């Protein structure tokens, strides 16, 4: 094994959202298909929700990347909170119209209504962190989608309790709502190993036995972000040992002790 293998493996688990790092998981790809199909359906807005770290932003980035080649699609990672600014950005992206002054809802609505769709394809606007938009703003977004001239896909962060409210609320005819969940142990295994394989860290990928995966799952509950943090620290510890006391580590499987040490360091275990 190369000495830098642990460093390379560690950096695989940096917490970043980039469509090119997307890992296809079976359950997620089913949801992905549902989402892709729902974009083609008229009327509906699409709501993507779930606990922090379940991959909403990642999902949206991937969806954006894959449909942007086929049709007009824009991803707003940052909520545009100024209303006029929001419409102006939409006008620019959707119709390439630039406004210098203020643009209000009614004015913009007029523009949208009078537009003919190009080849009957509805352009898609994706809004991440949509809980930051105000209620009124969300209502206006809904009215905009009612014109059927633009479609919104919305990712919403909700806490567990609010999740239920969100679900009940958005399960009306207007919304197609999709919930993202934490990974099952089997999915977590695929997630970790595929991530490592993608970065050519085949040796470390094979170190994750079912036993170590189960322990990791127990600690992180299958949350992708928590898993990233845990494994990042795990390889950081491995890297340290490899440099300082290489005889302390086994190279054929991930040690439970080091998993637990990483969990202590990241706060998943209170010790």
């Amino acid at each position, binding site marked *: 094994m190369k000495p830098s293998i642990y460093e390379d493996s560690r950096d695989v688990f940096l917490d970043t959202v980039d469509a090119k790092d997307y890992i296809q998981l079976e359950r997620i790809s089913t949801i992905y298909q549902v989402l892709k199909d729902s974009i083609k359906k008229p009327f509906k807005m699409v709501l993507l929700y779930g606990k922090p770290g379940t991959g909403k932003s990642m999902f949206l980035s991937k969806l954006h990347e894959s449909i942007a080649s086929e049709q007009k699609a824009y991803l707003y*990672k940052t909520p545009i909170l100024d209303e006029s600014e929001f419409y102006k950005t939409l006008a620019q992206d959707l119709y390439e119209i630039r406004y210098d002054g203020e643009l209000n809802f009614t004015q913009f609505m007029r523009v949208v209504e009078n537009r003919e769709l190009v080849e009957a394809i509805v352009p898609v606007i994706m809004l991440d962190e949509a*809980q*930051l938009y105000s209620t009124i703003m969300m209502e206006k977004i809904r009215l905009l989608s009612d014109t059927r001239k633009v479609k919104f896909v919305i990712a919403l962060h909700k806490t567990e309790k609010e999740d239920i409210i969100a679900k009940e609320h958005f399960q009306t005819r207007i919304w197609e709502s999709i919930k993202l969940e934490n990974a099952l142990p089997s999915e977590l295994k695929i997630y970790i190993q595929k991530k490592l394989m993608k970065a050519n860290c085949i040796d470390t990928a094979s170190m994750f036995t079912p036993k170590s995966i189960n322990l990791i799952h127990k600690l992180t509950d299958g949350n992708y*972000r928590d898993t990233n943090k845990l494994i990042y620290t795990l390889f950081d510890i491995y890297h340290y040992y490899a440099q300082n006391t290489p005889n302390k580590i086994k190279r054929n499987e991930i040690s439970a002790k080091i998993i*637990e040490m990483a969990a202590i360091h990241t706060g998943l275990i209170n010790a």
Partner: protein
Amino acid sequence: MLNIHELENKHKKYKLKSFAPYLVILLSITIVLISILFFLLYDLGSNTELNKSEQIAQKEESQREENSTSNLTQEKNETLQKEISIPEIVKEVPKTEEVTEAIQKKVLLSPSLNFIKSIESQAPIYKEKVHKTAAIVEQQIKKPIQKKEEILLPAVEEVKESMAIVEKTGSIDIKRRDEEVDIKHVIKRFNINHNPALSLFVAKKYYQLEDYEQAYNYALATNELNNDMEASWIIFSKSLVKLGKKEMAVETLKKYINYSSSSQAKQLLDEILSGKFK
């Protein structure tokens, strides 16, 4: 960053702690076993000396005794467990606080102006982009002029009408209380996921609240995470002016305009230089 030695110690403690309940159970089982053994032996010894009727009476008595003593040992065990578990809990509480405190400390942002240097070193990377974006901007500027004529401004009455619709449906449909999104809540989330969208949101909120120092801090954090966000540079420069660092704001904007050719930034720069924005 990683203190392996400390981590190893913590892990040892953690392991001991997780074994403690088993130790307690093991200990109590041995105590019970020993006491049962003791009474059995006692029974056997008395057998030879006492006649039968006495034996029966004794047996009953010892059985009663046994019951009560085993109750006693159970009680003992319970208090034993309590004694062991209480200090554990007490110990744990301040620790978790310590951990969260440490986490918060880590992400507390200290104002630093190193970024300006970092822009300088990054500038060449953007050169190519500047040409491209400049071309795009040119295109975009040309188009709207032709199209602007098409846009009809609706009458005031119509505006009122549709606003009424919005308000009606708004109150029925969505009852989210995010009108006054808790800024602290957003900060907490930013500290976890380091999403520049969130820090920009916080910067904007603080700017609205006229807390320019915090606005500056969060805009800076945003720029460090993603230095391609126009809105963040705008808030950053505006906060600088508000903090009395006009020159720095001008400097920053100039550098930003150099690689982004942002019209918003240019506009702000003009306003600052002319004294319109202060």
